[in-house]
């Protein structure tokens, strides 16, 4: 059954005004704590490196300069790295969403031998720390000839247990009647899935898309292993390499870091409307 969200947050008229003031103060405090590092990161990106090292913290740069961004874009393959990250994250997100829906459906709606064990096994793979499997997977990539390629970056990540889990929860929360009606009308299982259930998965898809895009965008260790040539670097790799080699040019590093944060923030801001709905409907709460 769909959960009825009859829950209304604390009603305004019931709250004494000191409480309201306190709540707003808390919100403000949380906002400051959350945004301060971002603010510092942005402001440093507009300062010359010497100023960043100076003893006093100035959030607003005294003489803002664009040099760091210019240096970043001309001296480092920033555009290419961002392009690579977008390509990889985009394809991965699409793949994970599609495979999660198709893989979750049998677990959500069908009965077959081995169903529960298989589901537990798939979920269980989430418990394997990635460092354990990285080298063997890398050797696998060599056998396939996928080192230093987009396939190498993407294919080992085209399915995600978390995605399967989320989709299963979500599909289970949809009313059975819809499917039954479609079956009675003579639709095959596949058609039911694609034409009846899939259109309803909006919120869950948005949720999964945000998770997956973010995880893929932020992935660091696997690209470090698989990527060999500069043209294939993702933005995280670029930042990590800079940390060691260019620490003396902190301004430029901060500029690149700032640029690297943008895409995921944008995706989240665009999709976040569906996000809370998605979590709610995925039955995580019971």
């Amino acid at each position, binding site marked *: 059954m769909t959960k009825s969200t009859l829950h*209304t947050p604390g009603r305004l008229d019931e709250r004494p005004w000191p409480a309201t003031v306190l709540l707003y103060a808390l919100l403000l405090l949380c906002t400051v704590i959350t945004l301060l*590092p971002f603010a510092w990161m942005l402001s440093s990106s507009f300062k010359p490196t010497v100023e960043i090292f100076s*003893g006093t913290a100035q959030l607003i740069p005294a003489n803002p300069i664009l040099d760091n961004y210019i240096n970043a874009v001309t001296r480092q393959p920033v555009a290419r790295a961002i392009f690579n990250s977008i390509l990889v994250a985009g394809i991965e997100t699409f793949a994970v969403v599609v495979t999660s829906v198709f893989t979750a459906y*049998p677990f959500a709606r*069908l*009965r077959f031998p081995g169903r529960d064990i298989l589901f537990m096994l798939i979920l269980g793979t989430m418990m394997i720390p990635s460092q354990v499997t990285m080298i063997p997977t890398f050797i696998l990539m060599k056998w396939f000839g996928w080192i230093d390629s987009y396939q190498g970056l993407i294919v080992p990540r085209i399915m995600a247990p978390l995605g399967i889990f989320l989709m299963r929860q979500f599909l289970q929360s949809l009313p059975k009647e819809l499917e039954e009606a479609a079956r009675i009308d003579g639709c095959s299982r596949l058609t039911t899935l694609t034409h009846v259930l899939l259109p309803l998965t909006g919120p869950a898809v948005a949720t999964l898309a945000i998770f997956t895009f973010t995880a893929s965008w*932020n992935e660091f260790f696997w690209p470090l292993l698989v990527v060999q040539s500069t043209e294939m670097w993702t933005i*995280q790799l670029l930042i990590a390499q800079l940390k060691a080699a260019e620490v003396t040019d902190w301004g430029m590093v901060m500029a690149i870091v700032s640029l690297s*944060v943008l895409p995921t923030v944008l995706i989240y801001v665009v999709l976040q409307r569906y996000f809370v709905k998605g*979590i709610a409907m995925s039955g995580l709460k019971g």
Partner: protein
Amino acid sequence: MTNPMAGRSIHWWNEETRFAWAALTPALLFFATFVGFPFGYSFYLSFHDWNMMVPTPTWVGLENYTALMADAEFTKSLVQTALFTIGITACIVVFSLAMALLLDQKLRWIKLYRTIFYLPAVTSLVAIGIVWVWMFDPQHGLINQGLRGIGVEGPLWLADTRIALLSLILTAAWRNVGYFATIFLAGLQGIDNTYYEAARIDGAGAWDRFRRITLPLLKPTFVFVVVMSVILSFQVFALVYVMTSGGPAGSTSVLVFYLYQQAFTYFRMGYASAVGYVLFLIIFVLTLLQFKAFGKTVEA
């Protein structure tokens, strides 16, 4: 063609099962190749000594595992990992729930706040690590400068062997609280208001309502948050790698980092695989225990 309704009770290999297995075959292939094989190969490696330079590993049987038990550095890593996991999970549960309660209020611009608080979760760990190393700098960092502003001499954070781990916990908490707050929020918003109405009519105060209605009804959410938090806590590798390299003096060496070091600095890939296995077993057992403790309420 078989009638889908009738086939079910006669023979287990029916249309439903066929469809299910057909739909699952790609997934099975994928997991077998990219999870099963590496996992198995890694297990195989854990019984060998391999410096990654010679073409064939050398069989050493259980030597890696026995060495593990006697290794003081491993034990230190294990303890530090436990501290980190407990610390981060506690922080997340407490702060995320508090933030969710805060976000659940009817206040102006609440949707904007929700968006803001989620921002750290979409930022890469590498970027966060770099920025927070600066925040924690005892001389130039924002945190100590702020403390100096109110007349307090801040600690050495990442340079202090006793506080470095705590600094990592704070960084990881800063990153994840928003994400888990959204999950708690969804849980809170699914609680039927009529429960609260009834309780209010009965004269229950805010704290009572929280304790007797909110907490129990949030149990499935708690389970999810705790399980995910424990699993995520093992991803602290990127933070350690970027911020401390296991230091100072090994005080932030957590198991995943210790594993990495053993493989790539000490050239002990076999031993690292054994460490990885032990780590997996620990996560596995922990997850099982959590499910037992909370009851399997997630499998609705």
